[in-house]
C-alpha cells in the first residue's frame, strides 16, 4: 500500500496488549514466540499482516498478535482466508489452526484451499487431542487412545496431516515441532515465501491433556536419532553421527538404513521440487506415528499458478477485451426496446 521503507520492528511491536491465556507450559507459547520473533526479520508490515483462525486453543493466536486479526468459527478459517486473500493480494494472510479445527470440522475447507493454491500460510498445531473442549480424541489421535470420549480406546484410524496435504495437491507442505525455535522459524520463513497455499504441521505438546505425545521424537536427547531433517538437494540422513539414512528400493519403497552398509551414494537425495508428489508422500509414510524416526522440514515446494492471481488475470483480460464495465452498457447487453 505504501512505498516507504518497512519500519524496523522487534518482537514487542508484534505482540498485542492482551494477556496470553494458554495453560502454563503449553507448546503454543513457543510457537507464538517463534512467530513474533520471526516477523521482524521478514520485511513485512504489521498493517499488511492478518492472522485468521477458527476455534480451539490454537485459534486464540490472533488475539496475541498486534496485527489485523479475525478469530472466526470452527473449521472455517481457510474459507474465510480464501475470500480475504483473493480480494486483497497485498496482504500476508496467516491461518492458525489445530488438528481438530483443520482436519475434523474444517477438513473440507483445508483440502480445497490447498488444491486451489490460495496464497495463505497455514500453521496447523497438531497435539493429537482436543484441548479447548477438555480432552477428547482428535482426528490425529492414535488408535486405542483412551480419552474422555473414548474410555475403551479410540477405534478411529488417524490422519497423517502431511500425507493428507500432499494428497490434496498442496504446493508447499512442511513439518516442524514446538521444541526447536530455529527449525520452526526456518520452516515458517519458507512457508511465508511460498507463492501459494503453504501447509505447515507443527507438532505441539498439550501438557494438560496429551503430555509428551511427541517426546519420543522431539526430546533434546532423542531428537538427533528420531528426527530426519529434510534438506533440498542433499542426501537424506540423520543420527548423531549422521550414520543413518533413507534409501529408495527398486520397488519404490523407502527404507531407513545404516549409511555404512549402503554407502553414501546410495542415499535418497531430497528433491522438494519434484513435480510428482509421490516421493514426498512416501517420505510422509516413513513414520507411522511419532514413535519412529520422522522426517521434518519441507517435503514439497513446487510452483503452480496462485488462485487469486488467476482470478485477477481473468478480470484484466475481460477489461482489456471489453473495457472496464459500464452499467449503462450492461443494461443493454440483451435486446432492449424504446417506448416514446
Amino acid at each position, binding site marked *: 500500500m505504501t512505498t516507504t521503507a518497512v519500519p524496523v520492528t522487534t518482537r514487542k511491536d508484534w505482540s498485542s496488549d492482551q494477556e496470553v491465556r494458554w495453560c502454563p507450559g503449553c507448546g503454543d507459547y513457543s510457537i507464538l514466540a517463534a512467530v513474533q520473533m520471526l516477523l521482524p526479520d521478514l520485511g513485512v508490515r504489521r498493517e499488511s499482516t492478518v492472522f485468521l483462525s477458527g476455534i480451539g486453543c490454537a485459534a486464540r493466536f490472533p488475539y496475541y498478535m498486534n496485527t489485523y486479526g479475525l478469530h472466526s468459527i470452527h473449521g472455517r478459517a481457510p474459507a474465510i482466508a480464501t475470500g480475504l486473500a483473493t*480480494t486483497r493480494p497485498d496482504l500476508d494472510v496467516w491461518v492458525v489452526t489445530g488438528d481438530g479445527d483443520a482436519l475434523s470440522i474444517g477438513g*473440507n475447507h483445508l483440502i480445497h484451499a490447498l488444491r486451489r493454491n490460495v496464497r495463505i500460510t497455514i500453521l496447523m498445531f497438531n497435539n493429537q487431542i482436543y484441548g479447548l473442549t477438555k480432552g477428547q480424541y482428535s482426528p490425529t489421535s492414535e488408535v486405542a487412545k483412551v480419552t474422555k470420549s473414548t474410555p475403551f480406546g479410540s477405534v478411529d484410524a488417524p490422519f497423517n496431516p502431511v500425507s493428507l496435504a500432499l494428497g490434496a495437491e498442496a504446493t508447499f507442505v512442511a513439518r516442524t515441532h514446538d521444541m526447536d525455535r530455529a527449525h520452526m522459524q526456518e520452516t515458517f520463513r519458507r512457508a511465508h515465501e511460498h507463492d501459494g497455499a503453504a501447509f505447515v504441521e507443527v507438532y505441539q505438546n498439550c501438557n494438560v491433556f496429551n503430555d509428551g505425545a511427541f517426546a519420543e521424537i522431539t526430546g533434546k536427547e532423542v531428537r538427533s536419532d528420531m528426527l530426519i531433517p529434510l534438506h533440498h538437494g542433499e542426501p537424506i540422513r540423520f543420527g548423531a553421527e549422521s550414520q543413518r539414512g533413507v534409501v529408495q528400493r527398486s520397488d519404490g519403497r523407502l527404507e531407513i538404513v545404516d549409511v555404512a552398509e549402503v554407502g553414501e551414494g546410495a542415499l535418497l537425495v531430497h528433491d522438494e521440487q519434484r513435480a510428482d508428489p509421490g516421493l514426498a508422500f512416501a517420505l510422509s509414510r516413513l513414520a507411522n506415528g511419532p514413535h519412529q524416526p520422522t522426517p521434518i522440514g519441507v517435503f514439497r515446494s513446487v510452483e503452480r499458478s496462485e488462485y487469486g492471481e488467476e*482470478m485477477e488475470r481473468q478480470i484484466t483480460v475481460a477489461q482489456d477485451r471489453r473495457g472496464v464495465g459500464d*452499467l449503462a452498457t450492461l443494461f443493454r447487453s440483451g*435486446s432492449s426496446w424504446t417506448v416514446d
Partner: protein
Amino acid sequence: MSTTEDHPTEQIDQVVVRFAGDSGDGMQLTGDRFTSMSAVLGNDMATFPDFPAEIRAPAGTMAGVSAFQVHISDHDILTPGDAPNVLVAMNPAALRANLGIMPKGSTLIVNADAFDDRSLTKAGYQENPLTDHSLSAFTVYEVPMTSITQEVCKEAGVKPRDAERSKNFFALGLVSWLYTRPIDPTIEWITKRFADHPQVGEANTRALRAGYDFGETAELFESNYEVRPAHFEPGEYVNITGNTALAWGLIAAARQAGLPLFLGSYPITPASDILHELSRRKEFGVRTFQAEDEIAGVGAAIGAAFGGALGVTTTSGPGLDLKSEAIGLAINLELPLLIVDVQRGGPSTGLPTKTEQADLLQAMYGRHGEAPLPIVAAKTPSHCFAAAIEATRLAVKYRTPVILLSDGYLANGAEPWRLPEVADLPVIEPNFATEPNHTEADGSSAYWPYVRDPETLARPWAPPGVPGLEHRIGGLEKADGSGNVSYDGLNHEQMVHLRAAKVAGIARDIPLTALDDPSGAAEMLVIGWGSTYGAILAGVKRMRARRGRDVAHIHLTHLNPFPADLGEILARYDKILVPELNGGQLWRMLRAEFLVDATALSKMQGTPFRPVEIEEAILEMLGGTT
C-alpha cells in the same frame, strides 16, 4: 385489420399461453422466444417457468412435464395470469398434467403425432382423450407437429430422429402465427445460436417457418389474434428475470459503493443463475468464487468483507440452513454482508424448482442467540434490482449482514423493466475508518473497533492496510468500545441490546408504509410481502373495479425492521388478510409485533397465487359471495 383474406385478425387485449412438453422438448426455450418476440412488439408481459427438478425424468411421463406460461397484454399486467387461454401440449403427459388448470372453453393445441398407445399409457391414459370426447369442453386443435417437422427437415438432410427435436420450433411458429408475432427475430436468433451447428439451425428454422405457414394455410383456425402494444412510460425497456435483475443490482450496488464485488456461492436451484450471471461480468471486477460448500461460500464472503469488499453469498433454503453459524459470526463481527436467499419449497430438499415464501421466519430467527438482522424482500422480477441495492445500502451503512429474500417465481419469471438512469442510482458511502478513534489513559491514541456512531449505532469498518488501526475481531463476545474479548455478563447484555437497537433503528432510515387505500376508509386491508405482489394487487384491483368493494393494500419490502408507522396503520383496520405462500409467517410476525387480529391466507402448492384466489379470500372475509 387482417393478415390474409381468409384469416381475419381479431383484436384481443390479453392472452395467456402455456407451452407444455417433455423436459427434453425445449419448452422453456420456446416460451422464452415467444416472450422475447412479444417484448419487441411492446406488449406488457409476465412469465412463469414451471419445470421439474429432474434434468430428464423418463420421457413421456407426468414427472417429466415442463411448462412455460406467458401472459401478454396491451395493458399493465401483474401476474402470469389466472389461467391459460391456450395450452400447447407436445404429448399426452403434458396434456394430462395441465388440463386441470385449463378453464372450460379454452384452447388446446396438441401434437397429434404423440398420442400413440405407448405415450398414452406412459401418461396414464386408458383411452385416447382426443377420441373419447373427454375434451368436449375445449377447443382442440390436433396438429401433426412431429411428422410435418420431419418432412420439412428431410430436404435439409437432417435425419428424422434429429428432426424430431425441432418440433418445439414448429409449435413456436404456429403460436407466433396465431398471435401475429413476427418470426424473423427468432430466425436471426437461431442463426446466431446454432452458428457452430448450421444443420441444426437449418432444421429449427424450417420447423419454425413450417409452423407459421401451417397456421396460415391449414384452414384449421378461424382467425388469428393481435395483442396491441401496452401503454408504457416512455423509456428504454428490457425483459428481465429476477435472477438477472438481482445480479445486476449487486453489480450496480458495488459500483455505487465504490467497493469490489465478491460473490462466494455454491450452486443451488433456483439461485445458481445469479452466480452464472455474475461470473460472466468480469469486466466489472467481479470476483466469483464457486466454493466447496455453502459454508465456504458465506465464509469467503465474510473474509472479503473483512478486507473491505462487498461480500455476497447467494443460496436457497437448504444452503441458508448451512450458513446460519457464519451469519451469526457476521452479526458479532458487525461487518457488511449480503445473503441472498432465493426461496423454494421446503423443508429439506423439498421442491427445488417450485416457489414458496417459507424462509421468512428462518431469516428472522434462524440463528442461535439473540441475532437480529435486517431483511429485505423483492416483490417482482425487476424489483430484484432495486432490492439488491437497498439491501447493500443497509449492510454497508449499518455494518451488518442483511438477508435479501427472493423466490423461485421471481428468479425465473420475467417482466419488462424500464432501465434506470445510472446517474439516478443511490450512492452508498462505505466510510472506512482512517484514523484512531480512542485516547488511552496515558494519552496515546488507539483504534477501538466497537466504538459506535451515535446515530446509526454502526461500528467503524477498518479493512487491513492502514497503519495504527490494527485490531482483532471475532465470534467471542466483545467489550463495548474496545472490542476486546469479554465474558462479563452485564457487558454481554449491553452488547445484545446495542446490536438489537442498531437493527431496530433502521426503521428511521426506510420509507414509511406505502399504503394503497384510495378512499382512506377501506373495509379491510390486504398485506403481503415478496413475490405475491402482482397477484394481491390484481385481486385487490378487481375487488374495487368489478365489485365496487373498498379494499386497501400494503406490500412490504422491509420485513425487519418494519416501517415505523406500520403498527399504527394496521390498527386502523378491523379486517386484515395476510396472503402468503407459506403457513402464515408474516401473519405470525404481525400478530406478535402489533397484537392485531389478522387472518392468514396460505398456499403451499409450489405455484404463485392466482388473482382469483386473492379475490375469493377477500370476498369471503367481507362476507360477500362469489
